[in-house]
């Protein structure tokens, strides 16, 4: 019996594992385990901020390791390791760094929030680190199975994080919704893997590509169905329309720092998987999947922009706006060129900072109980807390694509790739949604900077819509005059001072500076994104 077992183990070769190549992930997993172990062994409660501080250190170490890998890649070129299941190239290291940064910033935002809500504990950070590791595995995956493993690690941790605010009904609802739909999409993804394996005989992305280049498949129905299912599964993760329905509810219900983290990491990892699978494995079938991506991009852009217009809840608004952002990333992907990919990468990278900063503001304004997220709760924010309002205004302007912020070049980059690929309708559509986007971002900024009293803006917004509909350029003036009482209220009857925790203030300062500095001098990040695509195989 033992003999046969021994024989079996001899047959089953464990692959050589290059631990340095997966060091960033290992650091996160090790950190998570250490934190879990340490906190369960020690009986005394450490000083507040210890857990998040630990997470920041771990994330920084992981970024350092990713940076080392980036350096290695730029010197020695990309390589495959761990039995070709992991790819170490510019593309994957960019995402490693991105996810590490998101984890670092996210845990800083979470610190103040969790303490305010009385939820502080090591579990949050353990889950965050594990989900980060999952996202990282998705980005380095060179094998569909590894993509799936990463996807599940990421998602399961996020399901729990979404429900972390146990006293809020909405939080549990978000977790259940995310879990049910997420599990469903994972199943579809898995089925897609099975079909692709059936059609090509491999789950390794490079082997699939090689197989497809060497064989002409006469009836490729199974393969196409498999690809379609992979796109659906990953499309769910990135909240691309029509697979976006979960995201407004989940974004709204989850604890706000989780929303920011989720919006950054899940989206980044999802796109990493999507880009890698489509380009690495199915690059030769571009003509088959490109139209699908074009349609997805168009739908996502429109659904996001139109959906955001009618929201009165800021978290839902940002959820729809992040759907719109996903549409922009898909525009770069739909171009299916190097410029397109680097545009998408640039977009994702800059978007990470913007979205974490934005939800950082929202988590502060939400106050105790995480419930004040109506547009009206933002009225007069500039007067109550000029710093918060200024940073939020800046980040919203960046999201709308105002020049000299990172957001402008991001939009410019993907749209230019669409123009270069001569898909003019998509370019025009995306820029039109950017115009719509300007409307809802500005409305929010305006509310922050308007005096607390009066319905002036609401009236103005309604007037605006009717006028745009009515005006054919002939009218001398608008509809009728509207009596508006604009009260410049000097007294503030609103809620008391908003407290911005130091760690959150740090994140807001960092994201704000990043957004402006790299908006003024974008060269570094453009080259970064550009280099990352050159290395994709």
């Amino acid at each position, binding site marked *: 019996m033992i003999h046969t077992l021994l024989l079996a183990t001899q047959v089953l070769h464990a692959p050589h594992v290059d631990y340095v190549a997966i060091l960033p992930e290992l650091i996160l997993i090790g950190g998570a385990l250490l934190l879990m172990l340490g906190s369960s062994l020690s009986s005394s409660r450490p000083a507040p901020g210890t857990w998040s501080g630990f997470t920041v250190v771990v994330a920084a170490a992981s970024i350092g390791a990713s940076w080392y890998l980036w350096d290695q890649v730029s010197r020695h070129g990309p390589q495959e390791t761990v039995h070709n299941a992991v790819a170490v190239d510019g593309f994957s290291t960019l995402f490693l760094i991105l996810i590490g940064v998101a984890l670092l910033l996210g845990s800083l935002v979470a610190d103040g929030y969790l303490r305010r809500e009385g939820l502080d504990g090591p579990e949050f950070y353990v889950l965050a680190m594990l989900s980060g590791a999952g996202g990282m595995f998705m980005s380095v995956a060179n094998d569909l199975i590894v993509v799936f493993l990463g996807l599940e690690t990421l998602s399961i941790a996020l399901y729990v994080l979404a429900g972390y605010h146990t006293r809020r009904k909405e939080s549990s609802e978000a977790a259940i919704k995310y879990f049910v739909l997420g599990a469903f999409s994972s199943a579809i993804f898995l089925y897609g893997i099975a079909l692709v394996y059936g059609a090509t005989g491999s789950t390794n992305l490079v082997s699939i590509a090689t197989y497809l280049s060497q064989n002409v498949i006469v009836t490729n129905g199974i393969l196409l169905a498999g690809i379609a299912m992979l796109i659906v599964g990953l499309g769910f993760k990135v909240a691309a329309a029509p697979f976006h329905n979960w995201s407004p509810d989940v974004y709204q219900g989850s604890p706000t720092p989780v929303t920011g983290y989720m919006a950054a990491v899940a989206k980044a990892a999802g796109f990493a998987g999507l880009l890698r699978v489509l380009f690495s494995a199915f690059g030769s079938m571009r003509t088959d999947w490109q139209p699908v991506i074009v349609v997805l991009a168009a739908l996502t852009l429109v659904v996001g922009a139109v959906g955001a217009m009618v929201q009165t809840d800021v978290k839902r608004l940002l959820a729809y706006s992040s759907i719109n952002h996903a549409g922009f990333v898909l525009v770069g992907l739909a171009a299916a060129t190097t410029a397109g990919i680097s545009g998408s990468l640039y977009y994702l990278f800059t978007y990470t900072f913007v979205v974490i900063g934005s939800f950082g503001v929202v988590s502060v304004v939400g106050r105790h109980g995480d419930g004040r997220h109506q547009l009206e709760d933002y009225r007069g924010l500039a007067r109550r807390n*000029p710093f918060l309002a*200024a940073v939020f205004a800046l980040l919203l*302007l960046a999201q709308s694509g*105002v*020049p*000299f912020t990172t957001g*402008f*070049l991001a939009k*410019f980059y993907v*749209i*230019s790739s669409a*123009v*270069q690929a001569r898909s*003019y309708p998509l*370019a*025009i559509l995306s*820029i*039109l949604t*950017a*115009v719509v986007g*300007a*409307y809802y971002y*500005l*409305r929010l900024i*305006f509310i922050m*900077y*308007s005096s607390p009293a009066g319905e*002036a*803006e609401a*009236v*103005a*917004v309604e*007037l*605006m819509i009717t*006028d*745009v509909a009515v*005006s*054919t*350029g*002939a*009218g*001398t*003036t*608008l509809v009728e*005059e*509207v009596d*508006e009482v*604009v009260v*410049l209220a000097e007294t503030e009857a609103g809620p008391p001072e908003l407290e911005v925790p130091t760690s959150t203030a740090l994140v807001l300062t960092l994201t704000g500076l990043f957004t402006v500095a790299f908006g003024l001098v*974008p*060269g570094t990040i*453009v*080259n970064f994104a*550009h280099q990352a695509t050159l290395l994709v195989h």
Partner: protein
Amino acid sequence: MSSVLAAASTIPFSTGTGGFGFPILPAIVVLPAIAAAAVALFVPRHRPDVAKVVGAVISVAVAGLAIAMAVRFRTGTPGYQFGVEHSWISAFGIQWKLGVDGISVFLVTVTAVVFPVAILGAPVTRDPKSYVGWMLLLEAACLGSFLALDVFLFFLFFELTLPPMYMLIGRWGGPKRSYAALKFFLYTFAGSALMLISLLVLAYLHDRTYGHLTFDVIALTTQQHLSTDTGILLFLGFAIAFAVKVPVFPFHTWLPDAQAEASTGGSIVLAAVMFNLGTYGLVRFCLEMFPRAAVALAPLMLTLGAVGIVYGFLVAVVQTDLKRMIAYTLVGDLGVIVVGLFAFTRQGLSGGVYQMVNHGVSMGAMFLLIGVVVDRFGTGDLRRMGGLQSNAPLMAALFMVVTLSVVGVPGLNGFIGEFLLLIGTFVTHRWWAVAATVGVILAALVFLWAYQQIFHGQPKERDRPAMADIGRRELLAVAPLVVLIVILGVYPRPFLDRINPSANRIIAHVSALTNQAEPAVATGARP
């Protein structure tokens, strides 16, 4: 096609500081931007006086630099001067490239002169710190737009004008300010969206033909591989953006709202600077980059201009709100300029440019005075005004000078520009010149009628206390503009010496390229 390629000659671009010892153009652009950042970051909210001083000093300093630049500007050369170029985003071939030629030189100067007028002459009581900050940022963006010689950079600055202008209307305006601000933003943003696509297509077509990606204005102007059909589409992309900004009928509907709701400072900048951005864009990008398309579409642009003239002035006549009335005359006024630009003659073009400069000077002064008038009466309603002359004779005199300048009385600036423009248009487009002349007459009607309503007769509301004449601060602010009105009117030569070579260059460029394609127009283009 190859002969056309050979015909395209390059445009001189001279670098160097022109004796200033420092790069003058970046200084003009960057100085207000840095000051804006400094005001936003370092001036405490409870010390608005500091912000006001910074705003005044910086904007006056920038005006000084711009005037010095215009004085040192070498006459008789058609190309760009004081040029600077640095690589900026190399992956896209985007440069930080600035330069000034005869078309832009006085637009820069007027812009730089108008901003201190707006900041000093029309201060606000509500949150002056932010007001000054936004004003300075807007100044940087406007100056940058006039000076940028990289299409991408131009677009950045052009877009960057929107958030500050939005804020200036939306926070410091009248009762319907938020509506007006949003309408302004969305109209212009939607317009420039099409421009972005066009400029990308332009750059990538250049890339496809010449093998390198560039957004350089000069390179894109001298490339002539575009077919007329492509050119027409791209022309439209740019033209719609500028037509919204100018605004050309029928894209004008945002203007009366924005102009009427904006605070005095905001409306000065809108009238004196923002519209020039649109007309400048039409010359620099539409005319110069797509000459064949411009010639092909000239009838359309001329017609829209002419309709705008008649429509603008006629609608102005029936307005009862002073600011709204003058706002509609702007539509007509700008229509006249558009007609001059698309007549494709040397006089028409230099007259058009001259008229843009006039427009900035006169309308800046006009809206400053209107601000004072509205302030004195406490209302913008013309029916409730009257009899101001007895109380405020100095204001009446200034208002009259500005009015006469706008309606084009000889001896003042409006006459020179309109005369050149009408002559230039008459040579090639007789009937449009007639339409423009009708507009000039209607303008006189509207402005003189407004003058009567405000200053003549008896005060309508007798219980109102005696109204003060123009204050010292306002006088100080409007004085430089009135001086410019007179100088531009009696001694136009130094101005035309600088404008003409560049205007001639553009007309020569257009006729050289359209000679082959459409000889009929080229005959007309020779003066």
